[in-house]
């Protein structure tokens, strides 16, 4: 190949590459460079034409974040025979990857060839992604002030020299968080006019570029994120988009935190009302019960007042159960149900419940048969097991239509099995799942008293004890409920 052809090929190759290329000999004389090198480093052609590396270094060093380190690095490389790869950071945010290797002529090193690759946009994108994901991570916190403090903290210096979050509360602007690098002035308090417009606002104030984005959830804006740019910084479309995205994420997070706070407050208020209500109702229920029981003890079996006193006691128990259910459902909904485990004999509990509900049974006309087989002791909460048996038996009495009721309990492996079977109206197949939901009742057309919480509570207790509930039912044939309770406490 002729040397003319070689030179032309080299020239064409250099001009075709997207990287800046520079070759310097050991005397500091620039042997070759391409146009891309000049444009990347903003070097005027006349300066490059002098072909002196020291001149070029003097010209460009100030563009870098750390000029001295840069110059030292270059000089060290000229003295060495190694290849190099590093990343250069510029004051204006540009980022170059720099490669260099010695130029050899036979065994002798005669110079060094440098190449520069502009990775600013990739770097910025990565920084933005990291920033947004960090911001999202911070915003997950329900501690709003701290989340916003962290958010504006990591926005400096990426989005400006200072940043602030202001919220409008009751018509008054309040600064919730602020961050600034060095002595940079903070953004003015909520300068966005009226907070009515959506989108970003850019304005100039005392020689600085200010950027503001609204904080809004699903409605009207309720605050502002504002940034003050570094001296000479002009906000790009990218900057604006990122700030707007940040505003959107922060807005939603603030709204969520507020909704969560409101919900928590509502739950607290409800529990307080429930607790007070329960206490207030249980007082008179106690007085009525003690009075009725005392009178019952003294009544002769044939007394005409006996049935009236029984009625008072029954009504009292119904009221008490109503309050219990109300409290239980509140606890189940908030996930707090405490158990007190002890050794409990299921047969004993069943007999107690049957005795307690005897009057109801007699009035319903349903004959009851009990079959209690084998050892039925387990590690349970006595009151909760009582509640399971009571609810199942009450339902059988309520829906049993006066036909026979059968209660069977038997050990089954690690479990104790309880079956309550009535021969009443039964439940349509499409309503079977619904009976375990709160405030549902299979025979919804009739008013049968209570809140319709019985089976919901049974299922919740059984599940929390690590057991299971099964239901079988056929319209006209009746219902069978089977509860299996593990006899040993779950650890």
């Amino acid at each position: 190949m002729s040397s003319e052809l070689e030179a032309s090929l080299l020239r064409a190759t250099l001009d075709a590459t997207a990287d800046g290329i520079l070759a310097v000999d050991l005397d500091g004389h620039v042997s070759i460079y391409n146009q891309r090198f000049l444009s990347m480093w903003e070097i005027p052609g006349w300066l490059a034409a002098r072909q002196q590396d020291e001149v070029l270094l003097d010209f460009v060093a100030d563009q870098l974040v750390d000029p001295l380190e840069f110059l030292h690095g270059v000089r060290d490389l000229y003295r060495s025979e190694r290849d190099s790869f590093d990343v250069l950071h510029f004051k204006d945010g540009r980022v170059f990857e720099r490669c260099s290797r010695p130029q050899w002529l036979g065994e002798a090193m005669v110079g060094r060839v440098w190449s520069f690759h502009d990775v600013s946009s990739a770097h910025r994108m990565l920084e933005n992604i990291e920033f947004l994901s960090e911001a999202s991570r911070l915003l997950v916190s329900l501690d709003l002030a701290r989340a916003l403090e962290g958010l504006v903290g990591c926005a400096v210096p990426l989005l400006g020299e200072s940043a602030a979050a202001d919220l409008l509360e009751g018509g008054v602007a309040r600064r919730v968080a602020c961050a600034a690098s060095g002595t940079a002035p903070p953004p003015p308090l909520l300068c966005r006019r009226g907070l009515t417009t959506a989108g970003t606002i850019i304005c100039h104030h005392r020689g600085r570029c200010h950027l503001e984005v609204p904080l809004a959830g699903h409605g009207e804006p309720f605050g502002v994120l504002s940034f003050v740019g570094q001296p000479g910084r002009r906000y790009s479309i990218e900057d604006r988009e990122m700030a707007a995205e940040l505003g959107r994420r922060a807005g939603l997070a603030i709204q969520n935190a507020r909704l969560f706070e409101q919900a928590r407050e509502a739950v607290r208020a409800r529990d307080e009302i429930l607790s007070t209500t329960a206490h207030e109702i249980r007082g008179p229920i106690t007085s009525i019960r003690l009075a009725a029981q005392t009178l019952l003890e003294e009544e002769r079996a044939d007394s005409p007042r006996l049935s009236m006193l029984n009625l008072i006691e029954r009504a009292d128990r119904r009221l008490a159960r109503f309050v219990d259910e109300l409290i239980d459902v509140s606890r189940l909904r908030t996930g707090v149900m405490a158990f007190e485990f002890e050794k409990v004999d299921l047969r004993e509990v069943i007999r107690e419940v049957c005795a307690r509900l005897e009057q109801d049974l007699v009035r319903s006309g349903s004959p009851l048969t009990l079959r209690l087989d084998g050892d039925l002791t387990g590690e349970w909460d006595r009151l909760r097991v009582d509640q399971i048996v009571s609810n199942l038996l009450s339902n059988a009495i309520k829906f049993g239509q006066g036909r026979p009721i059968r209660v069977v309990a038997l050990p089954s492996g690690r479990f104790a099995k309880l079956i309550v079977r009535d021969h009443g109206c039964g439940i349509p197949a499409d309503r079977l799942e619904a009976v375990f939901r709160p405030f549902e009742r299979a025979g919804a057309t009739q008013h049968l008293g209570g809140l319709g919480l019985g089976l919901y509570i049974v299922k919740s207790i059984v599940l929390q004890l690590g057991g299971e509930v099964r239901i079988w039912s056929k319209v006209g044939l009746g219902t069978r409920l089977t509860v299996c309770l593990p006899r040993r406490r779950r650890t």
Partner: protein
Amino acid sequence: MSGWILVVDDDPDICEAIEIVLGRHGIPARSAGDGRSALAILGEAGPPAAMLIDLHMPVMGGAELVAAVRRDPALARVRLIGLSGALDTPAIADELSLDQFLVKPIDVPALLAAVAPALGEAGGARGR
């Protein structure tokens, strides 16, 4: 007066009902509407066999009263039975040094069973 019961509840109906029930079973009882009045009665009448204490009362609450009784060596043998109908009280009761805790509504057998240990052990040690 030995072997008597002090009922402390801000609901006068409950106090009256419990006094009547206990009275009919031969157990003398007195009542107070709050912790402070209860302490006044204790100061005047000496230690009862047991106290039934509502844990939700004005002026001086149940928890304070329990603490005050437990601090007094003269009342060391008094059986303390907590009473409440509120939602959070089982948790509160756990933290108090009560001998027993009953959730309202209570019935006659439960009431008699709760005070029986105090009356059965005449001057004996309280089983805790």
